[in-house]
C-alpha cells in the first residue's frame, strides 16, 4: 500500500505537467480561434463531442489512437535511449506499403493477416536500420537522417501508389487490401488491431521497465558515458531502440491500412498516411515517454483527430487548429520546470 501511494505520488508530477501542457495548448489554440472570430468554447464542445460522445466518434477515436500509440512508442522508446527518433513518419509509410504488398499474395484467411502484420513491422524496421547504422557507426544525428528517410519514403510511396499499386477502378486510392488480410471489426469502425497495438505497447513497457535490456537502454539514455563505464554497449542499446521503434511504426502503418474502414487503401496523395509520425512525438511527450502513459495520451490525441471533423462541420473551424494545439503542447513540454517557474514568479510577486 505504502509503495503504491509512493508510486502514485511519483506519477503526480509528470501527470500534472502533461495536463498543464495540454491546458496551455488548448488555451493558445483558443486564442488563435478568438482572433479570427471563432467561438472556442463552441468549437471545443464539438471537438470533444465528436470525439468521445457517440459510438461512431469513439470508434474512430480509438482507431486513431491505435496508430498514434504505436508512433508514440517509436519516439518515446527513442527518448528512453537518448535518441530523437522522428522517423516514424517514413517508417509508417514503409509499413503501410508493405501491408499493401502482402495483401496481394494468395494465402488462407488467418495466415494472410499475420503475414501482413509481419510484413508491415519488418518494413518499418528496415526503414529504421539505416538510421541506426549511420548513428552508431558514423555518428550521424538521427534528426537529419530520419527526416531524409521520411522524404525518401514519401516519394517512394508516391511512386508505388501510382505504379505497381495503381487501382484500375478508382483514381483516388491505391489497390485495396484484400478481405483476407483485413483486421476484423470490433464495433463500428473500430478494428481488432487495437489488441495488437496494446499487446505491443505492453510488451515494450515490460522490456523497458522489467528487463536487463530495458535497464541498459534507459541507462544509455540517462548518461551514455556512465553506461559505457558500466560495461553497457551504447551502440547496441541505441540500435535496439531504433529497431523496435521501427517495428512499432511499421505496425502502425499496417494497422492504418488493414484496419481502417471503409477504404483499406493508401490515398493517391498519401493524405491518409501522413502526419501520424509527427503527431506521435506529441503523443509520446504527453505520455512522458512511458508506454502506458502513451496509451492514454494516444486516446486523447486520437480524440482530437477524430473530433476535428465534427468541429469543422458544426462550428466551421478549420481542422488544422488541432495541429496548432499539438505544436504548442510540445513546445510547453520542452520546459520541464515551467510549472515551477510560474509558481516561483507568482510567489515572488506575492512576497514583494
Amino acid at each position: 500500500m505504502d509503495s503504491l501511494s509512493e508510486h502514485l505520488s511519483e506519477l503526480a508530477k509528470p501527470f500534472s505537467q502533461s495536463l498543464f501542457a495540454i491546458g496551455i495548448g488548448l488555451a493558445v489554440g483558443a486564442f488563435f480561434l478568438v482572433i479570427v472570430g471563432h467561438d472556442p468554447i463552441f468549437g471545443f464542445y464539438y471537438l470533444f463531442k465528436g470525439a468521445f460522445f457517440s459510438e461512431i466518434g469513439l470508434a474512430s477515436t480509438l482507431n486513431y489512437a491505435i496508430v498514434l500509440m504505436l508512433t508514440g512508442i517509436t519516439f518515446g522508446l527513442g527518448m528512453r535511449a537518448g535518441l530523437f527518433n522522428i522517423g516514424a513518419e517514413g517508417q509508417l509509410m514503409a509499413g503501410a506499403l508493405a501491408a499493401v504488398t502482402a495483401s496481394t499474395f494468395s494465402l488462407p484467411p488467418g495466415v494472410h493477416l499475420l503475414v501482413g502484420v509481419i510484413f508491415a513491422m519488418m518494413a518499418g524496421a528496415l526503414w529504421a536500420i539505416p538510421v541506426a547504422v549511420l548513428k552508431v557507426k558514423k555518428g550521424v544525428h538521427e534528426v537529419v537522417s530520419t527526416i531524409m528517410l521520411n522524404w525518401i519514403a514519401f516519394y517512394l510511396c508516391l511512386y508505388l501508389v501510382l505504379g505497381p499499386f495503381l487501382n484500375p477502378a478508382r483514381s483516388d486510392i491505391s489497390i485495396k487490401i484484400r478481405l483476407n488480410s483485413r483486421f476484423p471489426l470490433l464495433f463500428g469502425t473500430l478494428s481488432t488491431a487495437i489488441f495488437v497495438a496494446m499487446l505491443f505497447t505492453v510488451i515494450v513497457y515490460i522490456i523497458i521497465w522489467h528487463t536487463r535490456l530495458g535497464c541498459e537502454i534507459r541507462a544509455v539514455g540517462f548518461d551514455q558515458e556512465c553506461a559505457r563505464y558500466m560495461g553497457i554497449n551504447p551502440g547496441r542499446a541505441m540500435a535496439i531502440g531504433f529497431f523496435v521503434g521501427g517495428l512499432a511504426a511499421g505496425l502502425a502503418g499496417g494497422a492504418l491500412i488493414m484496419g481502417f474502414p471503409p477504404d483499406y487503401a493508401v490515398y493517391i496523395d498519401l493524405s491518409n498516411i501522413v502526419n501520424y509520425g509527427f503527431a506521435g512525438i506529441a503523443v509520446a511527450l504527453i505520455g512522458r515517454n512511458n508506454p502506458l502513459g502513451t496509451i492514454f495520451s494516444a486516446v486523447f490525441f486520437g480524440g482530437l483527430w477524430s473530433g476535428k471533423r465534427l468541429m469543422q462541420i458544426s462550428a466551421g473551424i478549420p481542422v488544422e487548429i488541432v495541429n496548432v494545439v499539438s505544436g504548442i503542447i510540445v513546445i510547453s513540454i520542452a520546459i520541464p520546470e515551467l510549472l515551477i517557474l510560474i509558481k516561483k514568479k507568482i510567489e515572488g510577486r506575492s512576497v514583494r
Partner: protein
Amino acid sequence: MIKIRRKLVLGIISVAILLYVLQLAGLKVPSLLMISLHSMVPLGLVAVGEVVNERAGTVNIGLEGMLLLSSFAAVYGTEISRNWAIGILVGMITGASIGLVHGLISIYAKGDQIISGVGVNLFAAGFVAYGIWTIWIPGVHMLSPGLSVPRIRTPWGGLSWFILLTIALVLVIAFIFYNTTWGVWLRAAGENPGAVDTSGINVFQLRLFACILGGMLAGLAGAFMSLDWIHMTTKGLPAGRGFIALACVVFSGLEPISALGAAVLFGFFDALSTWIMAIPKLGPLIPPGFDNFVKIMPYIVTLVAVAVVIGKRRFPKSVGRPYRREEI
C-alpha cells in the same frame, strides 16, 4: 585536410562531368546553374544562421518551421501592404520572434532544445495551414501578380537580388566571426560559456542574440521562398529544406563560408532534381511515376554526404546544453 581537399577536387570533377553529360542531353547548363543559385539562397541563409546559433551554443531544429511560418507571414504582409519590401520585413520579424521564443525556452528556461524545435515545426505546419484556410482558401495561396520581388535581368533569365545578398551576408558574418572581439565571445560561448561568463560578458544575452539573428536569417530565407522564388504559400513549401540546411551545417563543420559552399552543393542537386524532367532529350524517356525517383535525389545526396564527412567534424563542447551558473 589534404584528404578533404582531394575529395573536394574529385567532387568538382564529377560535377563537371555530370554537367557535360547534361549539356549533351540537351539541357542548358547556364540555366541549371541559375536555378542552383536560387536553390542555394534558402539553404545558405538558414544554414549560416544556424552556424551562428550553434557556435554560440544553442541548437535549433525548428528551422523548417521557421522557414514555413516566415514564408507565410511574408506573403500575408505583402498582400496587406501591397509592397514586397514590407513582406520581407514581416518575414524577418516572424523568424526573429520564433528565434526569440526558442532562445527564451532553451537559454533562460533551460528547456529541451530539440523538443522545442520539434514543437516549432509541428506548430508551424498547423498554423500555416490554419492561417491559409482562414485568410484565403484552403490549401494554397498564390501571390498576387506584380507583388513578387523584382529580379536582375540576365541573358539566362532573372537573377534574384537575394543571391548577392546571401553571399554578402555570409562574408560579413564570417568576418565578424573571426576578426572581431564579439565574434570571439560568440564562439567562446559555445565552447566554454563559464569562461565567457567569468570575464564579465553576459552569456545568456549573447546566445539569445545569436538565436534572434539565426531566426532573422531563416525569416529572410522564408520571405525569399514565397515572394521571390515560388510565388506562393502552402503548408509544404520548405519541403525539408530546413533539415537539409541542418545537414549543410553539419557538413560545413560550423564554418560560415563552408556552410555557403554546402548550400551551393545541395542547392545544385535540389535544382537538378526539379529540372531533370525538363531536359528535352531525357524528360520524355522517364516513364510516368518514375519522376519521383528523381525527386528523391537531394535527400539521398544529403544523407550520403553527411555520412561521409561527419566523423571529420568537431563541434563546440557546450553546444545543445543550457548554461547554468553555479548557484551558491
